[in-house]
Protein backbone atom coordinates (compact mmCIF):
# COMPACT_ATOMS: atom_id res chain seq x y z
CA UNK A 1 0.00 0.00 0.00
CA UNK A 2 1.98 2.95 -1.24
CA UNK A 3 -0.51 5.26 -2.93
CA UNK A 4 -3.96 5.94 -1.49
CA UNK A 5 -6.71 8.51 -1.72
CA UNK A 6 -8.51 10.74 0.74
CA UNK A 7 -11.31 13.14 -0.08
CA UNK A 8 -10.58 15.70 2.64
CA UNK A 9 -7.38 17.00 4.14
CA UNK A 10 -8.47 17.46 7.72
CA UNK A 11 -8.80 13.80 8.78
CA UNK A 12 -5.30 13.15 7.49
CA UNK A 13 -3.79 16.10 9.30
CA UNK A 14 -5.72 15.25 12.46
CA UNK A 15 -4.27 11.75 12.35
CA UNK A 16 -0.75 13.15 12.05
CA UNK A 17 -1.37 15.72 14.78
CA UNK A 18 -2.45 12.93 17.10
CA UNK A 19 1.05 11.51 16.89
CA UNK A 20 3.22 14.60 16.79
CA UNK A 21 3.33 18.36 16.52
CA UNK A 22 2.33 19.41 13.04
CA UNK A 23 3.10 22.62 11.18
CA UNK A 24 0.96 23.73 8.27
CA UNK A 25 1.10 26.61 5.78
CA UNK A 26 -1.33 29.46 6.33
CA UNK A 27 -1.82 32.46 4.10
CA UNK A 28 -0.66 35.71 5.64
CA UNK A 29 -1.16 38.60 3.24
CA UNK A 30 -0.03 37.37 -0.14
CA UNK A 31 2.34 34.67 1.17
CA UNK A 32 2.16 31.45 3.10
CA UNK A 33 3.85 31.07 6.46
CA UNK A 34 4.00 28.10 8.81
CA UNK A 35 1.80 27.88 11.88
CA UNK A 36 1.30 25.11 14.39
CA UNK A 37 -1.71 23.01 13.53
CA UNK A 38 -4.48 22.96 16.09
CA UNK A 39 -7.10 20.32 15.17
CA UNK A 40 -9.76 21.99 17.29
CA UNK A 41 -9.48 25.47 15.81
CA UNK A 42 -8.57 24.75 12.20
CA UNK A 43 -11.91 24.08 10.56
CA UNK A 44 -10.54 23.85 7.08
CA UNK A 45 -6.96 23.48 5.96
CA UNK A 46 -5.42 25.34 3.07
CA UNK A 47 -3.56 23.40 0.44
CA UNK A 48 -0.74 25.76 -0.52
CA UNK A 49 -0.23 26.12 -4.26
CA UNK A 50 3.43 27.04 -3.85
CA UNK A 51 6.09 27.07 -1.12
CA UNK A 52 5.84 29.28 1.97
CA UNK A 53 7.77 32.56 2.04
CA UNK A 54 9.77 31.43 5.08
CA UNK A 55 12.44 28.78 4.52
CA UNK A 56 12.23 25.17 5.66
CA UNK A 57 15.69 25.44 7.22
CA UNK A 58 13.98 27.03 10.25
CA UNK A 59 12.80 23.57 11.29
CA UNK A 60 16.23 21.98 11.08
CA UNK A 61 18.61 24.81 11.78
CA UNK A 62 16.81 27.40 13.89
CA UNK A 63 17.62 31.10 13.75
CA UNK A 64 19.42 30.87 17.07
CA UNK A 65 20.24 27.86 19.21
CA UNK A 66 22.41 26.82 22.11
CA UNK A 67 25.53 25.07 20.75
CA UNK A 68 27.65 24.55 23.87
CA UNK A 69 27.65 25.22 27.58
CA UNK A 70 30.70 25.99 29.63
CA UNK A 71 31.92 24.35 31.79
CA UNK A 72 29.36 21.52 31.52
CA UNK A 73 29.05 20.09 27.99
CA UNK A 74 25.78 20.64 26.17
CA UNK A 75 24.06 17.75 24.52
CA UNK A 76 21.44 18.53 21.88
CA UNK A 77 18.07 18.96 23.53
CA UNK A 78 15.68 16.06 23.21
CA UNK A 79 13.71 16.71 20.03
CA UNK A 80 10.22 15.25 19.86
CA UNK A 81 8.97 13.97 16.53
CA UNK A 82 7.34 16.72 14.48
CA UNK A 83 5.71 16.95 11.08
CA UNK A 84 5.67 19.67 8.46
CA UNK A 85 3.04 19.75 5.75
CA UNK A 86 3.11 21.48 2.40
CA UNK A 87 6.77 21.31 1.47
CA UNK A 88 7.39 21.55 -2.25
CA UNK A 89 10.00 19.90 -4.42
CA UNK A 90 12.23 22.98 -4.01
CA UNK A 91 11.98 22.60 -0.24
CA UNK A 92 12.95 18.95 -0.37
CA UNK A 93 15.93 19.80 -2.53
CA UNK A 94 16.95 22.46 -0.04
CA UNK A 95 16.99 19.81 2.68
CA UNK A 96 19.17 17.63 0.47
CA UNK A 97 21.61 20.54 0.26
CA UNK A 98 21.62 21.19 4.01
CA UNK A 99 22.14 17.46 4.59
CA UNK A 100 25.33 17.62 2.55
CA UNK A 101 26.69 20.29 4.88
CA UNK A 102 25.44 19.25 8.28
CA UNK A 103 25.45 15.47 7.97
CA UNK A 104 28.94 15.28 6.53
CA UNK A 105 30.59 12.15 7.93
CA UNK A 106 33.44 13.50 9.93
CA UNK A 107 31.82 16.77 10.86
CA UNK A 108 28.25 15.90 11.69
CA UNK A 109 26.30 18.67 13.41
CA UNK A 110 24.48 16.86 16.21
CA UNK A 111 21.90 19.59 16.59
CA UNK A 112 20.89 19.28 12.95
CA UNK A 113 20.95 15.48 13.13
CA UNK A 114 18.61 15.51 16.14
CA UNK A 115 15.98 17.54 14.28
CA UNK A 116 16.45 15.87 10.92
CA UNK A 117 15.80 12.41 12.36
CA UNK A 118 12.57 13.52 14.00
CA UNK A 119 11.08 15.45 11.08
CA UNK A 120 8.14 13.83 9.27
CA UNK A 121 7.92 15.41 5.83
CA UNK A 122 4.61 15.74 4.03
CA UNK A 123 5.22 17.38 0.69
CA UNK A 124 2.68 18.36 -1.92
CA UNK A 125 2.46 19.08 -5.63
CA UNK A 126 2.57 22.70 -6.81
CA UNK A 127 -0.11 24.30 -8.94
CA UNK A 128 -0.55 27.88 -10.15
CA UNK A 129 3.15 28.76 -9.72
CA UNK A 130 4.13 32.17 -8.38
CA UNK A 131 5.82 34.86 -10.42
CA UNK A 132 9.14 34.29 -8.67
CA UNK A 133 9.02 30.48 -8.87
CA UNK A 134 11.89 29.41 -11.10
CA UNK A 135 12.79 25.85 -10.06
CA UNK A 136 12.76 24.65 -13.66
CA UNK A 137 15.74 26.90 -14.40
CA UNK A 138 17.69 25.06 -11.69
CA UNK A 139 16.80 21.47 -12.37
CA UNK A 140 13.66 21.41 -10.22
CA UNK A 141 10.08 20.36 -10.75
CA UNK A 142 6.57 21.22 -9.66
CA UNK A 143 6.27 17.93 -7.81
CA UNK A 144 8.52 15.76 -5.71
CA UNK A 145 9.75 12.30 -6.55
CA UNK A 146 11.91 11.69 -3.48
CA UNK A 147 12.85 13.12 -0.12
CA UNK A 148 9.39 12.94 1.48
CA UNK A 149 7.63 10.63 3.90
CA UNK A 150 4.26 11.39 2.33
CA UNK A 151 3.41 13.40 -0.76
CA UNK A 152 -0.01 14.82 -1.57
CA UNK A 153 -1.38 15.77 -4.93
CA UNK A 154 -4.63 17.71 -5.10
CA UNK A 155 -7.17 16.53 -7.67
CA UNK A 156 -10.79 17.47 -8.24
CA UNK A 157 -12.37 15.18 -5.65
CA UNK A 158 -9.63 14.89 -3.09
CA UNK A 159 -5.98 14.09 -2.59
CA UNK A 160 -3.67 11.36 -3.78
CA UNK A 161 -1.35 10.37 -0.94
CA UNK A 162 1.90 8.63 -1.77
CA UNK A 163 4.42 7.18 0.68
CA UNK A 164 8.07 7.86 -0.05
CA UNK A 165 9.76 6.26 2.93
CA UNK A 166 9.33 3.44 5.43
CA UNK A 167 8.01 5.99 7.93
CA UNK A 168 5.44 7.09 5.37
CA UNK A 169 4.43 3.53 4.49
CA UNK A 170 4.01 2.71 8.15
CA UNK A 171 1.78 5.72 8.61
CA UNK A 172 -0.45 4.69 5.71
CA UNK A 173 -0.64 1.17 7.07
CA UNK A 174 -1.53 2.33 10.57
CA UNK A 175 -4.28 4.64 9.28
CA UNK A 176 -5.65 2.61 6.42
CA UNK A 177 -9.22 3.17 7.64
CA UNK A 178 -9.15 6.86 6.66
CA UNK A 179 -7.97 6.19 3.11
CA UNK A 180 -9.61 4.61 0.09
CA UNK A 181 -8.19 3.23 -3.11
CA UNK A 182 -7.13 5.77 -5.69
CA UNK A 183 -9.92 6.27 -8.24
CA UNK A 184 -8.51 5.27 -11.64
CA UNK A 185 -9.12 8.69 -13.23
CA UNK A 186 -7.38 10.54 -10.37
CA UNK A 187 -3.87 9.47 -11.33
CA UNK A 188 -4.35 10.69 -14.88
CA UNK A 189 -5.70 13.95 -13.51
CA UNK A 190 -2.67 14.32 -11.23
CA UNK A 191 -0.28 13.70 -14.10
CA UNK A 192 -2.06 16.22 -16.25
CA UNK A 193 -1.84 18.89 -13.49
CA UNK A 194 1.83 18.10 -13.06
CA UNK A 195 2.52 18.50 -16.76
CA UNK A 196 0.45 21.65 -16.91
CA UNK A 197 2.22 23.23 -13.92
CA UNK A 198 5.63 22.26 -15.21
CA UNK A 199 4.79 23.83 -18.57
CA UNK A 200 3.54 26.96 -16.84
CA UNK A 201 6.81 27.26 -14.87
CA UNK A 202 8.86 26.89 -18.01
CA UNK A 203 6.79 29.50 -19.83
CA UNK A 204 7.04 31.95 -16.93
CA UNK A 205 10.81 31.67 -17.01
CA UNK A 206 11.46 31.43 -20.69
CA UNK A 207 13.08 34.86 -20.84
CA UNK A 208 15.59 33.84 -18.14
CA UNK A 209 16.70 30.63 -19.75
CA UNK A 210 20.48 30.41 -19.86
CA UNK A 211 22.53 29.30 -22.84
CA UNK A 212 25.11 27.41 -20.78
CA UNK A 213 25.21 25.60 -17.43
CA UNK A 214 24.98 28.14 -14.62
CA UNK A 215 28.33 27.08 -13.13
CA UNK A 216 30.03 27.80 -16.41
CA UNK A 217 28.42 31.22 -16.60
CA UNK A 218 29.49 32.14 -13.06
CA UNK A 219 33.01 30.77 -13.44
CA UNK A 220 33.54 32.72 -16.63
CA UNK A 221 32.41 36.02 -15.16
CA UNK A 222 35.06 36.83 -12.53
CA UNK A 223 35.56 40.37 -13.77
CA UNK A 224 32.02 41.24 -14.71
CA UNK A 225 30.67 44.67 -13.77
CA UNK A 226 27.22 43.16 -13.32
CA UNK A 227 27.82 42.51 -9.60
CA UNK A 228 28.77 46.10 -8.88
CA UNK A 229 25.94 47.44 -11.00
CA UNK A 230 23.40 45.19 -9.29
CA UNK A 231 24.83 46.13 -5.91
CA UNK A 232 23.62 49.69 -6.44
CA UNK A 233 20.08 48.40 -5.92
CA UNK A 234 20.97 46.47 -2.77
CA UNK A 235 20.34 48.00 0.65
CA UNK A 236 22.20 45.21 2.47
CA UNK A 237 19.14 44.11 4.42
CA UNK A 238 20.33 40.49 4.13
CA UNK A 239 16.75 39.31 3.60
CA UNK A 240 17.86 37.24 0.60
CA UNK A 241 20.09 35.09 2.79
CA UNK A 242 17.52 34.83 5.61
CA UNK A 243 14.73 33.52 3.42
CA UNK A 244 17.03 31.39 1.30
CA UNK A 245 16.39 27.75 2.21
CA UNK A 246 19.94 26.73 1.30
CA UNK A 247 22.01 29.59 2.78
CA UNK A 248 23.47 28.14 5.94
CA UNK A 249 26.12 30.57 7.16
CA UNK A 250 26.12 30.94 10.89
CA UNK A 251 27.85 32.85 13.60
CA UNK A 252 29.10 31.41 16.89
CA UNK A 253 29.06 33.80 19.82
CA UNK A 254 29.56 33.47 23.54
CA UNK A 255 27.25 34.80 26.26
CA UNK A 256 27.15 34.93 30.02
CA UNK A 257 24.08 33.45 31.63
CA UNK A 258 23.26 33.59 35.33
CA UNK A 259 25.28 30.57 36.37
CA UNK A 260 26.93 29.33 33.20
CA UNK A 261 28.49 30.45 29.95
CA UNK A 262 26.93 29.55 26.65
CA UNK A 263 28.07 29.34 23.05
CA UNK A 264 25.24 30.20 20.69
CA UNK A 265 24.86 29.47 17.02
CA UNK A 266 22.92 32.03 15.01
CA UNK A 267 22.20 32.55 11.31
CA UNK A 268 24.63 34.90 9.67
CA UNK A 269 24.81 36.45 6.22
CA UNK A 270 27.71 36.73 3.79
CA UNK A 271 26.11 39.98 2.63
CA UNK A 272 27.09 41.63 5.91
CA UNK A 273 30.12 43.95 5.62
CA UNK A 274 32.01 42.59 8.64
CA UNK A 275 31.21 38.97 7.83
CA UNK A 276 34.70 38.03 6.64
CA UNK A 277 36.62 40.67 8.57
CA UNK A 278 39.46 39.49 10.81
CA UNK A 279 40.56 41.00 14.11
CA UNK A 280 43.28 43.12 12.52
CA UNK A 281 40.67 44.74 10.23
CA UNK A 282 41.55 42.98 6.98
CA UNK A 283 38.49 42.12 4.93
CA UNK A 284 38.59 40.37 1.58
CA UNK A 285 35.10 41.53 0.58
CA UNK A 286 34.78 45.14 1.62
CA UNK A 287 32.85 46.03 -1.52
CA UNK A 288 29.19 45.02 -1.74
CA UNK A 289 29.51 43.86 -5.34
CA UNK A 290 32.24 41.44 -4.23
CA UNK A 291 29.91 40.03 -1.60
CA UNK A 292 27.11 39.55 -4.11
CA UNK A 293 29.54 37.83 -6.45
CA UNK A 294 30.82 35.61 -3.64
CA UNK A 295 27.29 34.60 -2.71
CA UNK A 296 26.46 33.59 -6.25
CA UNK A 297 29.82 31.89 -6.76
CA UNK A 298 29.19 29.90 -3.59
CA UNK A 299 25.77 28.89 -4.84
CA UNK A 300 26.68 28.02 -8.39
CA UNK A 301 30.35 27.11 -8.40
CA UNK A 302 32.01 26.46 -5.03
CA UNK A 303 29.22 24.29 -3.62
CA UNK A 304 28.91 22.37 -6.86
CA UNK A 305 32.63 21.75 -6.83
CA UNK A 306 32.51 20.27 -3.34
CA UNK A 307 29.21 18.44 -3.26
CA UNK A 308 28.22 17.94 -6.88
CA UNK A 309 24.97 19.94 -6.72
CA UNK A 310 24.11 23.63 -6.98
CA UNK A 311 23.20 25.49 -3.83
CA UNK A 312 20.08 27.05 -5.31
CA UNK A 313 16.73 25.37 -5.83
CA UNK A 314 15.00 28.18 -7.70
CA UNK A 315 12.34 28.72 -5.05
CA UNK A 316 12.37 32.46 -5.74
CA UNK A 317 12.10 33.48 -2.09
CA UNK A 318 15.02 35.89 -2.46
CA UNK A 319 13.22 37.56 -5.36
CA UNK A 320 10.08 38.07 -3.27
CA UNK A 321 12.07 39.30 -0.28
CA UNK A 322 14.20 41.85 -2.09
CA UNK A 323 12.74 45.29 -1.50
CA UNK A 324 14.47 46.60 -4.62
CA UNK A 325 13.60 43.54 -6.65
CA UNK A 326 17.06 42.35 -7.38
CA UNK A 327 16.27 39.18 -9.23
CA UNK A 328 18.77 36.33 -9.29
CA UNK A 329 17.36 35.30 -12.68
CA UNK A 330 18.08 38.73 -14.12
CA UNK A 331 21.61 38.78 -12.73
CA UNK A 332 22.41 35.39 -14.24
CA UNK A 333 20.79 36.35 -17.53
CA UNK A 334 22.89 39.52 -17.69
CA UNK A 335 26.04 37.46 -17.15
CA UNK A 336 24.81 35.06 -19.80
CA UNK A 337 24.38 37.91 -22.29
CA UNK A 338 27.79 39.36 -21.45
CA UNK A 339 29.48 36.06 -22.17
CA UNK A 340 27.78 35.76 -25.52
CA UNK A 341 29.61 38.88 -26.61
CA UNK A 342 33.08 37.86 -25.57
CA UNK A 343 35.39 34.90 -26.05
CA UNK A 344 35.54 32.45 -23.18
CA UNK A 345 37.51 33.84 -20.27
CA UNK A 346 39.78 31.82 -18.05
CA UNK A 347 37.77 29.61 -15.76
CA UNK A 348 38.30 30.83 -12.19
CA UNK A 349 36.85 28.82 -9.37
Amino acid at each position, binding site marked *: METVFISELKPLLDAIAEQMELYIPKKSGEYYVYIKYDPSSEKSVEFNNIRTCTPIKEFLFPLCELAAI*FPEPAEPEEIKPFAVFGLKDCDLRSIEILDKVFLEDEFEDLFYVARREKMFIISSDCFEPGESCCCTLFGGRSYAEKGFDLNLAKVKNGFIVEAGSDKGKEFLQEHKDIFVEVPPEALAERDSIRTQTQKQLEENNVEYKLDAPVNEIMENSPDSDVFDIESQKCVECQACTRVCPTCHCFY*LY*DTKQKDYFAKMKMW*DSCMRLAYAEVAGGAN*PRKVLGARIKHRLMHKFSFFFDRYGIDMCVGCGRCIDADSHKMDIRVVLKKLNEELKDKPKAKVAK
Partner: protein
Amino acid sequence: MNRNLYQPIDCEIVDIIDESPTIKSFVVVPEEKISFQTGQFVELTLPGVGEAPFTPSSSPADTEKMEITIVKAGRVTNLLHQCKKEQKVGIRGPFGNGYPIDDFVGKQIYIVGGGVGLAPIRSLFLTLVDRIKDFKSVVCRFGAKTPDDFIYKKTLFGSWQKIAGVNMKLTVDEADGEWKGNVGVVTTILAAKDVDIKNAVAVVCGPPIMMKFTTLKLLEFGFAAKDIYLSMEKNMSCGVGKCGHCMIGKYYVCKDGPVFTYEQIEQYPDIFD
Protein backbone atom coordinates in the same frame (compact mmCIF):
# COMPACT_ATOMS: atom_id res chain seq x y z
CA MET B 1 27.81 9.19 18.30
CA ASN B 2 30.14 11.94 17.12
CA ARG B 3 31.03 14.62 19.59
CA ASN B 4 29.45 18.04 19.61
CA LEU B 5 31.54 20.09 17.18
CA TYR B 6 30.93 23.30 19.09
CA GLN B 7 31.77 22.12 22.61
CA PRO B 8 35.24 23.22 23.75
CA ILE B 9 37.49 21.06 25.90
CA ASP B 10 38.17 22.71 29.26
CA CYS B 11 41.73 23.95 29.72
CA GLU B 12 43.61 25.67 32.51
CA ILE B 13 46.09 28.45 31.92
CA VAL B 14 49.23 27.34 33.77
CA ASP B 15 51.68 30.00 32.61
CA ILE B 16 51.68 33.33 30.83
CA ILE B 17 54.80 34.66 29.09
CA ASP B 18 55.12 38.31 28.06
CA GLU B 19 56.66 38.12 24.62
CA SER B 20 56.44 41.74 23.51
CA PRO B 21 54.44 44.81 24.45
CA THR B 22 51.41 43.48 22.57
CA ILE B 23 52.01 39.74 22.52
CA LYS B 24 51.70 37.10 25.23
CA SER B 25 52.06 33.34 25.15
CA PHE B 26 49.64 31.26 27.19
CA VAL B 27 50.55 27.77 28.30
CA VAL B 28 47.38 25.75 28.73
CA VAL B 29 46.74 22.24 29.99
CA PRO B 30 43.66 20.62 28.46
CA GLU B 31 41.51 18.30 30.55
CA GLU B 32 41.74 15.70 27.83
CA LYS B 33 44.67 15.27 25.50
CA ILE B 34 44.55 17.31 22.29
CA SER B 35 46.82 15.92 19.56
CA PHE B 36 47.57 18.15 16.63
CA GLN B 37 49.86 18.38 13.63
CA THR B 38 52.07 21.40 13.32
CA GLY B 39 50.25 24.06 11.29
CA GLN B 40 46.75 23.02 12.35
CA PHE B 41 44.80 25.56 14.39
CA VAL B 42 42.46 25.57 17.37
CA GLU B 43 39.59 27.80 18.47
CA LEU B 44 40.27 29.25 21.89
CA THR B 45 37.19 30.24 23.89
CA LEU B 46 37.22 32.76 26.67
CA PRO B 47 33.99 31.65 28.34
CA GLY B 48 31.21 34.18 28.06
CA VAL B 49 33.34 36.46 25.90
CA GLY B 50 34.14 34.86 22.59
CA GLU B 51 36.31 32.61 20.54
CA ALA B 52 39.21 33.17 18.16
CA PRO B 53 41.43 30.95 15.99
CA PHE B 54 45.11 30.41 16.81
CA THR B 55 47.77 28.04 15.59
CA PRO B 56 49.55 26.53 18.59
CA SER B 57 53.17 27.63 18.87
CA SER B 58 54.31 24.56 20.80
CA SER B 59 55.58 21.31 19.38
CA PRO B 60 52.95 18.63 18.73
CA ALA B 61 55.34 16.27 20.50
CA ASP B 62 54.40 17.93 23.79
CA THR B 63 51.04 16.31 24.36
CA GLU B 64 50.60 17.43 27.97
CA LYS B 65 50.31 21.12 27.31
CA MET B 66 49.86 23.55 24.48
CA GLU B 67 51.24 27.03 23.98
CA ILE B 68 49.27 29.67 22.20
CA THR B 69 50.79 33.03 21.33
CA ILE B 70 48.30 35.85 21.11
CA VAL B 71 48.64 39.39 19.82
CA LYS B 72 46.20 41.99 21.09
CA ALA B 73 44.16 42.66 17.98
CA GLY B 74 40.50 42.81 18.87
CA ARG B 75 37.85 42.38 21.55
CA VAL B 76 38.53 38.73 22.42
CA THR B 77 42.31 38.97 22.34
CA ASN B 78 42.29 42.13 24.46
CA LEU B 79 40.34 40.29 27.13
CA LEU B 80 42.51 37.19 26.76
CA HIS B 81 45.48 39.39 27.60
CA GLN B 82 43.83 40.20 30.94
CA CYS B 83 43.62 36.48 31.86
CA LYS B 84 45.54 35.22 34.86
CA LYS B 85 47.14 31.89 35.69
CA GLU B 86 44.70 29.16 36.74
CA GLN B 87 41.91 30.74 34.74
CA LYS B 88 39.80 28.36 32.68
CA VAL B 89 39.51 28.63 28.93
CA GLY B 90 38.19 26.25 26.29
CA ILE B 91 39.73 24.77 23.17
CA ARG B 92 38.02 23.28 20.12
CA GLY B 93 40.02 21.52 17.48
CA PRO B 94 42.52 20.94 16.10
CA PHE B 95 41.15 21.95 12.73
CA GLY B 96 42.37 21.91 9.16
CA ASN B 97 45.53 20.56 7.66
CA GLY B 98 49.06 20.99 8.90
CA TYR B 99 52.37 21.44 7.13
CA PRO B 100 53.10 18.35 5.00
CA ILE B 101 56.35 17.64 6.86
CA ASP B 102 56.93 14.29 5.18
CA ASP B 103 56.94 15.99 1.78
CA PHE B 104 59.74 18.24 3.06
CA VAL B 105 62.14 15.34 3.73
CA GLY B 106 65.49 15.76 2.00
CA LYS B 107 64.77 19.35 1.08
CA GLN B 108 65.91 22.78 2.09
CA ILE B 109 63.12 24.46 4.04
CA TYR B 110 63.17 28.19 3.55
CA ILE B 111 61.05 29.75 6.29
CA VAL B 112 60.07 33.40 6.21
CA GLY B 113 58.23 34.80 9.19
CA GLY B 114 57.14 38.15 10.47
CA GLY B 115 55.69 39.50 13.71
CA VAL B 116 53.28 37.16 15.43
CA GLY B 117 53.54 34.92 12.35
CA LEU B 118 56.46 33.36 14.21
CA ALA B 119 53.91 31.55 16.40
CA PRO B 120 52.94 28.80 13.94
CA ILE B 121 56.52 28.87 12.68
CA ARG B 122 57.84 28.08 16.16
CA SER B 123 55.73 24.93 16.24
CA LEU B 124 57.00 24.00 12.78
CA PHE B 125 60.58 24.87 13.70
CA LEU B 126 60.50 22.69 16.82
CA THR B 127 59.04 19.83 14.78
CA LEU B 128 61.73 20.16 12.11
CA VAL B 129 64.54 20.45 14.63
CA ASP B 130 63.40 17.22 16.28
CA ARG B 131 64.36 15.39 13.08
CA ILE B 132 66.76 17.90 11.55
CA LYS B 133 68.81 15.17 9.85
CA ASP B 134 65.81 14.37 7.64
CA PHE B 135 66.13 17.73 5.92
CA LYS B 136 68.87 19.25 3.83
CA SER B 137 68.77 22.44 5.85
CA VAL B 138 66.41 24.83 7.58
CA VAL B 139 66.84 28.46 6.57
CA CYS B 140 65.03 31.02 8.72
CA ARG B 141 64.47 34.63 7.75
CA PHE B 142 62.49 36.40 10.45
CA GLY B 143 61.46 40.01 10.86
CA ALA B 144 59.80 42.22 13.45
CA LYS B 145 59.00 45.91 13.76
CA THR B 146 61.62 46.54 16.47
CA PRO B 147 63.94 44.21 18.41
CA ASP B 148 61.48 44.39 21.30
CA ASP B 149 58.68 43.15 19.04
CA PHE B 150 60.41 39.81 18.39
CA ILE B 151 58.67 37.00 20.20
CA TYR B 152 60.46 34.00 21.74
CA LYS B 153 63.48 36.30 22.19
CA LYS B 154 65.38 34.02 24.54
CA THR B 155 65.55 31.10 22.14
CA LEU B 156 65.46 33.16 18.97
CA PHE B 157 68.50 35.23 19.92
CA GLY B 158 70.14 32.27 21.68
CA SER B 159 69.90 28.51 21.30
CA TRP B 160 68.04 28.40 17.97
CA GLN B 161 70.90 30.20 16.24
CA LYS B 162 73.32 27.46 17.24
CA ILE B 163 71.45 24.40 16.00
CA ALA B 164 73.46 22.52 13.36
CA GLY B 165 71.56 22.52 10.07
CA VAL B 166 69.78 25.79 10.86
CA ASN B 167 70.75 29.03 9.16
CA MET B 168 69.05 32.01 10.74
CA LYS B 169 68.94 35.71 9.92
CA LEU B 170 66.85 38.34 11.65
CA THR B 171 65.83 41.84 10.68
CA VAL B 172 63.87 44.70 12.19
CA ASP B 173 62.02 47.56 10.54
CA GLU B 174 63.45 50.01 13.09
CA ALA B 175 66.53 49.33 15.19
CA ASP B 176 67.29 50.49 18.70
CA GLY B 177 70.77 51.25 20.10
CA GLU B 178 71.74 47.67 20.82
CA TRP B 179 70.59 46.03 17.58
CA LYS B 180 73.50 44.84 15.48
CA GLY B 181 71.58 42.95 12.83
CA ASN B 182 69.93 43.99 9.60
CA VAL B 183 67.50 46.88 9.45
CA GLY B 184 64.75 46.70 6.86
CA VAL B 185 61.62 44.69 6.08
CA VAL B 186 61.99 40.94 5.87
CA THR B 187 62.30 40.88 2.08
CA THR B 188 65.63 42.76 2.44
CA ILE B 189 67.23 39.65 3.96
CA LEU B 190 65.94 37.24 1.35
CA ALA B 191 68.64 36.36 -1.15
CA ALA B 192 68.57 33.98 -4.09
CA LYS B 193 72.09 32.78 -3.29
CA ASP B 194 70.84 31.25 0.00
CA VAL B 195 68.26 29.17 -1.83
CA ASP B 196 68.88 25.72 -3.25
CA ILE B 197 66.14 26.37 -5.75
CA LYS B 198 66.10 22.89 -7.29
CA ASN B 199 65.46 21.29 -3.94
CA ALA B 200 63.69 23.78 -1.71
CA VAL B 201 60.27 24.50 -0.31
CA ALA B 202 59.28 27.81 1.25
CA VAL B 203 57.04 28.42 4.25
CA VAL B 204 55.66 31.90 4.82
CA CYS B 205 53.70 33.22 7.78
CA GLY B 206 53.16 36.80 8.85
CA PRO B 207 51.02 39.86 8.26
CA PRO B 208 49.21 39.86 4.88
CA ILE B 209 51.38 42.56 3.34
CA MET B 210 54.56 40.73 4.33
CA MET B 211 53.19 37.46 2.92
CA LYS B 212 52.35 39.17 -0.33
CA PHE B 213 55.76 40.73 -0.95
CA THR B 214 57.61 37.67 0.31
CA THR B 215 55.67 35.45 -2.06
CA LEU B 216 56.47 37.74 -4.98
CA LYS B 217 60.15 37.67 -4.05
CA LEU B 218 60.17 33.88 -3.75
CA LEU B 219 58.61 33.58 -7.19
CA GLU B 220 61.36 35.86 -8.47
CA PHE B 221 63.94 33.46 -7.00
CA GLY B 222 62.39 30.72 -9.07
CA PHE B 223 60.25 28.95 -6.49
CA ALA B 224 57.34 27.12 -8.11
CA ALA B 225 53.95 28.25 -6.80
CA LYS B 226 53.35 24.70 -5.58
CA ASP B 227 56.42 24.87 -3.35
CA ILE B 228 55.41 28.01 -1.47
CA TYR B 229 53.36 27.16 1.61
CA LEU B 230 51.29 30.00 3.03
CA SER B 231 49.59 29.87 6.41
CA MET B 232 46.41 31.84 5.75
CA GLU B 233 44.56 33.87 8.28
CA LYS B 234 40.88 34.41 7.61
CA ASN B 235 37.87 34.70 9.89
CA MET B 236 37.76 31.02 10.86
CA SER B 237 34.85 30.43 13.18
CA CYS B 238 33.20 27.00 13.17
CA GLY B 239 36.41 25.23 12.17
CA VAL B 240 34.58 22.52 10.22
CA GLY B 241 33.73 24.08 6.86
CA LYS B 242 30.14 25.05 7.53
CA CYS B 243 29.72 28.60 8.83
CA GLY B 244 31.30 30.16 5.74
CA HIS B 245 33.26 33.06 7.24
CA CYS B 246 36.74 31.94 6.18
CA MET B 247 36.09 31.14 2.54
CA ILE B 248 38.76 31.98 -0.04
CA GLY B 249 37.10 31.15 -3.31
CA LYS B 250 36.01 27.53 -3.10
CA TYR B 251 38.20 26.76 -0.12
CA TYR B 252 37.27 26.81 3.52
CA VAL B 253 40.48 27.99 5.17
CA CYS B 254 39.43 26.16 8.34
CA LYS B 255 39.04 22.80 6.67
CA ASP B 256 41.09 22.87 3.47
CA GLY B 257 43.80 25.08 5.05
CA PRO B 258 45.02 26.99 6.92
CA VAL B 259 48.15 25.90 5.04
CA PHE B 260 47.83 26.38 1.29
CA THR B 261 50.33 26.34 -1.50
CA TYR B 262 50.39 29.55 -3.47
CA GLU B 263 49.41 27.48 -6.48
CA GLN B 264 46.10 26.58 -4.85
CA ILE B 265 45.03 30.14 -4.17
CA GLU B 266 46.92 32.44 -6.52
CA GLN B 267 43.88 32.87 -8.76
CA TYR B 268 41.94 34.69 -6.05
CA PRO B 269 42.63 38.40 -6.07
CA ASP B 270 41.74 38.95 -2.42
CA ILE B 271 43.96 36.45 -0.60
CA PHE B 272 46.19 39.07 0.97
CA ASP B 273 43.39 41.55 1.76
